[in-house]
């Protein structure tokens, strides 16, 4: 639409809006749709190739065709002989452990800072904001030497701690916002009815903050699930490595086991994309919390 010389009447505008909503799509809408669909396709394109390659039969890997002539599940069945089951278990342990730890540590901190003004509150929130800005990669050498010093190389605990520590900030922000939006009168009412302070927190506030809690947990889980650099540095024995490191291990200096690599990648990626789509809207608000509304 081009600029309009005279402001159209409200009713005319209204009519056009409803027509657009109900009637057949305008050319503009069609153009929008086509470009949006093409862009959306480009964004999932690499992951489609990931799936297709993982389903290529071994004898078709080295045929330069866009799509294979046959599809086969063999990569997925033979995958487990490479020890991937162990790697999957380690990843689940790390991601699950980090998620639980974040829940235990971030919830009380977020609740307290949302409900009370106390000395050091600002200092605490600055500390949290700063950790959100730091990436474990930047501290790699320090983390490495620290855990060598504690004899915690190849320990699942070290990765649980690191992942929890670096993802806690996001959880604190998003939970802080949720707790802050729940009126404290609700809790006080429950306390007057005989609940203890903790009882009120568990029975009234936490259920109301459930969407925030779920978002924080899913986000932590995914971040820990996908983490690569620290795991690559701290987990040196193959049967202690999480999926990401194991998948990188399929990349050989002379030959690469592409089919197994992508079968493992599909297993590691698709669930995460679905989980992430569920919390998509809330993630941005958490990541940018403290800076924009």
């Amino acid at each position, binding site marked *: 639409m081009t*600029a309009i010389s005279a*402001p159209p009447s409200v009713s005319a505008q209204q009519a056009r809006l409803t027509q657009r909503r109900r009637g057949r*799509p305008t050319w503009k*809408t069609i153009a*929008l749709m086509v470009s*949006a669909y093409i*862009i*959306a396709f480009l*964004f*999932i394109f*690499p*992951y489609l*190739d990931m799936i297709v390659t993982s389903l290529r039969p071994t004898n078709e890997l*080295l045929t*330069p065709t866009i799509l294979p002539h046959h599809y086969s599940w063999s990569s997925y069945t033979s995958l487990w002989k490479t020890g991937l089951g162990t790697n999957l278990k380690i990843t689940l342990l790390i991601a699950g452990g980090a998620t639980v730890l974040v829940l235990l*540590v*971030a919830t*009380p*901190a977020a*609740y*307290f800072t949302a409900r009370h003004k*106390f000395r*050091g509150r600002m200092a*605490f929130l600055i500390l949290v*904001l700063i*950790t959100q*800005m*730091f990436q474990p*990669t930047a*501290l*790699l*050498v*320090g983390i490495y*030497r*620290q855990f060598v010093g504690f004899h915690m190389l190849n320990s699942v605990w070290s990765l649980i*701690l690191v992942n929890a*520590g670096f993802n*806690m900030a996001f959880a604190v922000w998003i939970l802080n916002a949720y707790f802050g939006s729940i009126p404290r*009168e*609700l809790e006080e009412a429950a*306390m*007057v009815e005989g609940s203890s302070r903790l009882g009120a927190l568990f029975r009234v506030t936490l259920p109301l903050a459930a969407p925030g809690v779920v978002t924080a947990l899913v986000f932590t889980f*995914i971040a820990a699930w996908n983490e*690569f650099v620290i795991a690559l540095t701290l987990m040196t024995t193959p049967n202690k490595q999480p999926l990401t490191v194991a*998948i*990188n291990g399929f*990349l050989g200096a002379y030959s690469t086991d592409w089919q197994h690599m*992508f079968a493992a*990648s599909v297993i590691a*990626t698709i669930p995460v*994309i679905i*989980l992430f*789509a569920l919390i*998509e809207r809330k993630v*941005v608000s958490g990541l*940018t*919390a*403290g*800076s*924009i509304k």
Partner: protein
Amino acid sequence: MSNEAAAPAAHMADSHTPIRRRKRSVGRRLADSFGPLLWIGPAIGLICFVVLWPVVVMVRTAFQRVSSFGEIKGGAGWRNFTRLFHELAFKGVVERTIIWVVAVVGITMLVSLALAQLFNQRFPGRRVTRWALIAPWAASVLMTALVFKWMLHSGYGLINILLHDVGLLNNLNSASADPLGKSSTAMPWLIFVAIFVSLPFTTYAILAGLSTIPGEVYEAAKVDGSSRWHTYRTVTLPLLRPALTVATLINVMNVFNSFPIIWAMTHGGPGYSTTTTTVYMYVLKGKDLGESAAMSVVNFGLVIIIVAVFLRISRWKSEVE
């Protein structure tokens, strides 16, 4: 619990609190000052152990002599730093890091402004297309990088096959079909992949910013007779500034610390032609831990500057209070 009972009860509790607060005992006051620690103590502990302690260890290591077996051989003064600065690759690595960050972040922001504008329109299926946009954000960056490495495989990579079918590539399995093997083409492809994985977050952040702009603002601009582009420049962009600032800074941090893309696709090669400071730190870690720590400290200094800028520009304070 019935609502009728809850409402007046809440009111009563409210009116009593100030009185209770005035008559605090000494024990209560002690509890008040230690109480917070009970709630936020675990979080502080975790931050100290996982974030602050490694910083201390890292800085200390930068001033130590470390043997190739990881033993401390005493202090090194500034020697790790001078050795680092005199490495032949160092200057190129720093220059490349600046190009890497500026190119990736700059292009990402421009493209995501356009994408956000598109996905902010109403059209059937918008929700589904927005989900597709998420994929590179949710998926592990490592795996995205590995897929691109495969798609660029000189013999069987899908991108090369498509280029070949279209006629833009003469021979598969030739040097021209191996963009990651040449320094002139490797870096542009790495930048492309980094932009690809950065776009979802920045686009979503801008979409969130767009949704905070009230519709009346646009109506007013329309009444004034502004053209679309003029409205965008004078109304939308200024109102998007907070969202843009935060998205840019978070993006800068991510791209600056980005490791998996380069490591999985080229290992920093050929030669050092795709090595950034973060990758260089990792490469040095295998050779000389002290020098690697010195590189980390230099990196870390830059990170602190970026964080300081972030704290200054963002309005985190008004949100917290």
